């Protein structure tokens, strides 16, 4: 089954390009550590999911590119076609002349209704090229105006028009210290709207990706391209083909469905995060070897302590002891930093993958009481290595990991809202104070729900 990707705004388009490039490079990589036949099956599966074929053999990304001003799309299209290996469809773009001005209200109330029809038509054309549709992957940022506002509008349209298809929104969580001054307003409006119309929100935080670039990749002058490439690597390790079960002989067919079935079982809990291990520069990769035991131990602790990468992990954080506390005594393990999970999915790729022991992830102490590890935990194992990493593990998790960042954004937006600063820019385009209040209410609910897991 295929995934149709919707790249929205500057962020969405810049990232989308890196993701397709990473997927393509990996599927054509010679160091798959598997048989030729295996590799071909992998390539074919990747292709079915993400690329369609053109007459002269150059694969075309299953994507629709949308932006309200032309510069980024032009750049994205030319970068893709310059590579010569894959490209975007000639008529898969929708562009306007003037951007959304970082104004969520403009993206949602002006651009949305004005251009929804054209955009939905493009999406329909892309859907028709698929033999079978797994769903939609919408790449967008929360901080700006187009990705966020128009993104929210289009997602709602997708819900109406393709009510049987799955939608996953990939959201860029902006740096804590501003890229955009009104980013907190734009973020709360985006999140609250998406929570109602999307099936899952897969979040990547700029701050986390930045640290990975600095500490693990050792990049001195970090550019957005570097950040996007780390992101693309993480997404690739999740979305590239995997086997369905132990001993299965074919790749999973429904990437989005399988992902969501495991991870998003309750409509109140839709926030997903990705962790990947190991992550390093290609240069260092050549000199490194790992054991599954070591990798999984680190990955588990990254989950428990809410670490974004394998360096600087806090090993003191432990899950609470299972069983009821002795009456009259306080529970011995009070762990304010413990990151409780609702559901986890571990994806392993590479050498000797069958020997990997994931017992640590099946510990009931990691999960909420109302969903035991039998339902909450899943694993997918694939021999074919990813992106030249002899062994790599990805963790997609529905956990408390975003509680603090979300709480922070809501808090800052609330403070700003109390002073009424910038509100006139939103009411100008039909987003009233009530809409803000609705968003605040919904998100406080989400924060509370996750806190009480």
């Amino acid at each position, binding site marked *: 089954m295929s995934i149709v990707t919707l790249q929205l705004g500057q962020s969405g388009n*810049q990232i989308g390009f890196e993701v397709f490039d990473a997927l393509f490079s990996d599927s054509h990589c010679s160091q798959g550590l598997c048989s030729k036949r295996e590799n071909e099956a992998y390539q074919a599966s990747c292709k079915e999911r993400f690329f369609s074929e053109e007459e002269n053999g150059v694969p075309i990304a299953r994507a629709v590119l949308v932006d309200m001003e032309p510069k980024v799309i032009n750049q994205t299209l030319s970068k893709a076609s310059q590579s010569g290996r894959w490209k975007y469809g000639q008529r898969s773009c929708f562009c306007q002349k*003037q951007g959304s001005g970082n104004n969520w209200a403009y993206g949602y109330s002006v651009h949305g209704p004005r251009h929804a029809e054209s955009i939905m038509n493009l999406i329909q054309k892309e859907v028709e090229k698929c033999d079978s549709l797994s769903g939609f992957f919408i790449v967008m940022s929360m901080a700006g105006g187009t990705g966020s506002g128009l993104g929210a509008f289009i997602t709602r349209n997708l819900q109406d028009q393709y009510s049987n298809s799955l939608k996953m929104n990939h959201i860029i969580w902006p*740096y804590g210290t501003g890229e*955009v001054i009104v980013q907190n307003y734009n973020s709360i409006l985006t999140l609250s709207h998406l929570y109602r119309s999307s099936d899952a929100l897969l979040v990547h935080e700029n701050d986390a990706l930045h640290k990975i670039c600095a500490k693990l990749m050792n990049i001195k*002058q970090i550019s957005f391209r570097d*950040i996007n490439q780390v992101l693309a690597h993480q997404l690739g390790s999740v979305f590239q083909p995997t086997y369905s079960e132990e001993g299965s002989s074919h790749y999973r067919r429904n990437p989005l469905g399988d992902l969501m079935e495991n991870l998003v079982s309750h409509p109140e809990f839709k926030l997903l995060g990705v962790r990947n291990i190991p992550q390093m520069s290609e240069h260092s990769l050549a000199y490194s070897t790992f054991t599954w035991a070591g990798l999984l131990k680190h990955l588990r602790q990254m989950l428990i302590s809410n670490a974004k990468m394998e360096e600087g992990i806090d090993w003191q954080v432990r899950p609470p002891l299972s069983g009821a506390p002795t009456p009259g005594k306080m529970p011995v393990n009070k762990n304010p930093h413990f990151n409780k999970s609702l559901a986890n999915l571990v994806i392993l790729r590479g050498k000797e993958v069958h020997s990997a022991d994931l017992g640590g992830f099946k510990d009931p102490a990691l999960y909420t009481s109302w969903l035991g590890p039998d339902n909450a935990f899943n694993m997918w194992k694939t021999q074919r290595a990813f992106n030249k990493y002899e062994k790599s593990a990805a963790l997609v998790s529905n956990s408390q990991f975003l509680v603090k960042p979300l709480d922070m954004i809501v808090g800052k937006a609330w*403070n700003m809202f109390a002073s009424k600063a910038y509100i006139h820019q939103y009411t100008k385009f039909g987003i009233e104070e009530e809409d803000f209040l609705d968003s605040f209410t919904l998100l*406080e609910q989400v924060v509370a729900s996750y806190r009480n897991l």
Partner: protein
Amino acid sequence: MTQSVVVQVGQCGNQIGCCFWDLALREHAAVNQKGIYDEAISSFFRNVDTRVAGDGGSIPKGKICSLKARAVLIDMEEGVVNEILQGPLRDVFDSKQLITDISGSGNNWAVGHKVFGSLYQEQILEKLRKSAEHCDCLQCFFIIHSMGGGTGSGLGTFLLKVLEDEFPEVYRFVTSIYPSGEDDVITSPYNSILAMKELNEHADCVLPIDNQSLFDIISKIDLVVNSGKLGTAVKPKSLVTSSVGAFKQRQEKPFDAMNNIVANLLLNLTSSARFEGSLNMDLNEISMNLVPFPQLHYLVSSLTPLYTLADVNIPSRRLDQMFSDAFSKDHQLIQADPKHSLYLACALMVRGNVQISDLRRNIERLKPSLQFVSWNQEGWKTSLCSVPPVGHSHSLLALANNTCVKPTFMELRERFMRLYKKKAHLHHYLQIEGMEESCFSEAVSSLSALIQEYSQLDATKSMPMEDLPRLRVAV
């Protein structure tokens, strides 16, 4: 991509405008080596086939034939505009986009605003409509004028109302030259205050600039250029003050160097909208992020570096110096000290080979020494444009919505009151039809209200920051 139209009004406005067009051409020539008329150029220039009679047929794509500035030149004296039309830029201007008169406004806002306003309203509208028609998607009007005189001040602000009524969706960015203390026009305080009221009510964003600051910057540059210190050879084209005649040591006209600074400001302001980058910033994002309340739309600007030293490799220390300088009071284009006042919002627009990590490192470094209003502690808007200005490897334009504009306004009000109390020169104004004393009192009230807003914000500076109680939800 969108287009912008520059409306240059009065002597000062036209002189600055002239410098701006010269620099804009140079910049596009440097970036656009193949001579193709692309979207970046189209933001400020039309491509015209001069063989076609009349209007000159517009050529939307392809090779550059003849570039015409998207400009409207207005002056009630002929001197400056005539000079422009006889100078090296004469072919850049469309001769039909001019409005001139002979007598001048006599440094009288009322003459500019009321007399010439009504006299030329139709013509102004016609020229503006024409220039808008030539645009595929008009986003912004840039008005350049001075506040102290009669034409720029009076007619320039009359224009704002016309623009607001006729093109309500198009942004109005005003670059205003404020008179310095030793201004030789006695009535400049009157003109400025009367103009301020219009700016308060009809401008989307104002970039106040004063001559004294520009002059101080020139002096600083001269010191370095002429000091002849070893190892401090300055690249000639890299001066923020340089123009076509950059190879000459002394500028021919006294104000050229100063005007070029303002011209560079406008170029840098629009660079991220015209050229590509990893974090674009369009013009509509400027007012969205920097104007938290409609009345508080005055942005203090600073440009760095002022010059590039001849040694080529810029280690990050120098890059960091560029960021530090942007916040020093010596680099601001008005007499202001943002570091010791309160920030409502700050934009950093970077050009050249600078990456997000450089930007973030410097924000982290400088943040502790700056004070932001409690509800906007992370009030930073940033942009990265890949294309540096001509002669530089990178540059930074900082725009601050900061209470440090208050002293400028208060001083202006004081100078105004000194004259007004004695009713000095008032009759020159009151004898103009439509002018009454209430115009003056309303204007000064409007300014006082604005000053009051800034004062109230300043008062919050030393208050402890409290997090407001959040909504409680049932779980």
